[in-house]
């Protein structure tokens, strides 16, 4: 009985994939991906997702370090807030971002525009911000877990050898959590690449400016199904590649002894 239910579950996951792949016009995939709308979307998606991964690393690693290494009141609350975007419906995230960052009536949007000239709505910057909002939590929790599981005595050894805290971090801690950082960055990148709800709500859906691959797929499904499917296959391929890259990190512990 259990096996039967398990088979149903497996089928439930496999059928949609089969559905997508069997509808793909394989002969025309390359042509579809070459059409201007698709190419704009791919270029924009790559650019924004890489920026967002970079920002996630820049801010997420220190955040993970603080969460893993220091004790302060409200730490659990901070962690909960950081992880919230992972469970928050992205549309809600997009609206929340709007009320914080939009130029007219956002919490700090006006100030950001006046001081730095930053304009988020209907701009690439907005896409990057939305993607970072949903992607960074993946990096933070993965790196934090890595920091927690590493043997801290290596840091003691480095300190006893005369390394200051920055040197210890740069030459010992960071390399030792390297695999976790790589995994976190890959997950964050994949999440950023697939981001839809927060982007469309916060940054809009303008071709060449804020229309990333998922938004393009959504648009093209009505008018140009072939290109929509081709772009979907690109996202599917990326997911599979990330999964393969992370197999040791993610599933290493699950393997049979």
């Amino acid at each position, binding site marked *: 009985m259990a096996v039967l239910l398990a088979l149903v579950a497996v089928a439930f996951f496999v059928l949609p994939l089969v559905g997508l792949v069997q509808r793909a016009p394989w002969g025309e995939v390359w042509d579809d991906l070459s059409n201007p709308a698709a190419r704009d979307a791919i270029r924009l998606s790559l650019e924004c997702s890489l920026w967002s991964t970079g920002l996630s690393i820049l801010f997420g690693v220190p955040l993970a370090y603080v969460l893993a290494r220091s004790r302060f009141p409200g730490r659990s609350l901070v962690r909960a807030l950081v992880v919230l975007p992972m469970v928050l419906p992205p549309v809600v995230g997009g609206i929340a971002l709007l009320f914080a960052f939009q130029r007219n009536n956002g919490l700090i949007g006006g100030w950001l525009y006046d001081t730095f000239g930053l304009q988020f709505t209907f701009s690439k910057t907005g896409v990057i911000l939305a993607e970072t909002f949903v992607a960074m939590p993946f990096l933070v929790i993965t790196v934090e877990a890595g920091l927690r599981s590493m043997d801290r005595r290596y840091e*003691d050894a*480095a300190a*006893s*050898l005369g390394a200051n805290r920055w040197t210890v971090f740069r030459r010992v801690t960071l390399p030792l959590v390297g695999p976790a950082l790589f995994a976190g960055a890959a997950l964050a990148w994949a999440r950023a690449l697939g981001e839809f709800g927060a982007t469309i709500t916060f940054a809009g859906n303008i071709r060449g400016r804020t229309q990333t691959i998922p938004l393009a797929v959504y648009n093209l499904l009505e008018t140009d199904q072939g290109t929509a499917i081709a772009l979907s296959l690109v996202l599917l391929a990326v997911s599979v590649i990330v999964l393969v890259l992370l197999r040791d990190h993610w599933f290493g512990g699950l393997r049979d002894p």
Partner: protein
Amino acid sequence: MTLDATVRLQLGSLDLDVHLTAADGETVAVLGPNGAGKSTFLRAVAGLAPLAGGRILIDRAVVDDPADGRYVVPERRSVGVVFQNYLLFPHLSVLENVAFGLRSRGVPRGEARRRAREWLARMDLARYCDAKPSSLSGGQQQRVALARALVTEPRLLLLDEPLAALDVGTRTELRRELRAELAQFEGARVIVTHELLDAVALADRLVVLERGRVAQQGSVTDVVAQPRSRYVADLVGINLLRGIGRDHEVALESGGTVATADPVAGDVYVAIHPHSVTVHLREPAASARNVWPGRIAGTDLLGDRVRIHVAGEVPLVAEVTAAAVAELGLHEGVGVWTSVKATDLQLYAA
């Protein structure tokens, strides 16, 4: 004194209060059971565990004094540490591991590598410069750890169980090597171990730590000859009893009495070597006045000798031949009598 440390701190259930000194060229072994606070003491000296009280001086300079708010960070103490399991950085080559301390102290890369290479050559490890530590044997890793700790020319060398990670076969040889290497280091050395043999082979002076306190200290020969704690006595392999002496008798703490050859007074230790203990199946009628009933609680084989643990009012370990065990049927659970001649007792003040 190169090291003059009074360390007071609490860590979990450990309540540490230890005073220890070490002079240039001296090796002090800190010996004690697991959880006695040996490693914590070492970490405190290195600046890796915060003191609650006490004071640490290295080369007459105060590096730690909580009462005075003085604390020198680990990287500014002239201390080299060989950690338990060595803790060689797994992502760096052997050469980079050894050069690490110099690089951290701002020595340019080329110069740091040159000096690291020199040290590795001294340790006969020149051909492993580019290897990763995990590809080396335990003994080689130990030498790399030593080179890494010594390359910055510290005044004080701390070694935490430097031989524990090695298998028994190579241990004897590496113990000898380590002794030779330590002899070349001019500063003070403090070595933490739970193996009496390591302490005897490597140290000039022994400090026995039990439950966070110094239970006994002195030259290796003194401590081994006159143990003042059950832990050391067990390590040395002799029976240690304690009691109050009066006239020709010692009333033991645990109950029972021991008759002595000479008059004895006050709080004393009674040490009895296991081969001075005779085991009988029936109560002996002989001249020995120290006769106690008991029951065999266990036996250990030691070459062709057997150590018999006899439980009773006066628990003793007796050493007999394997032949005697077979002949008399001295197995676990058998009721026996133990006897010791008064002249075979060793008495010293507690």
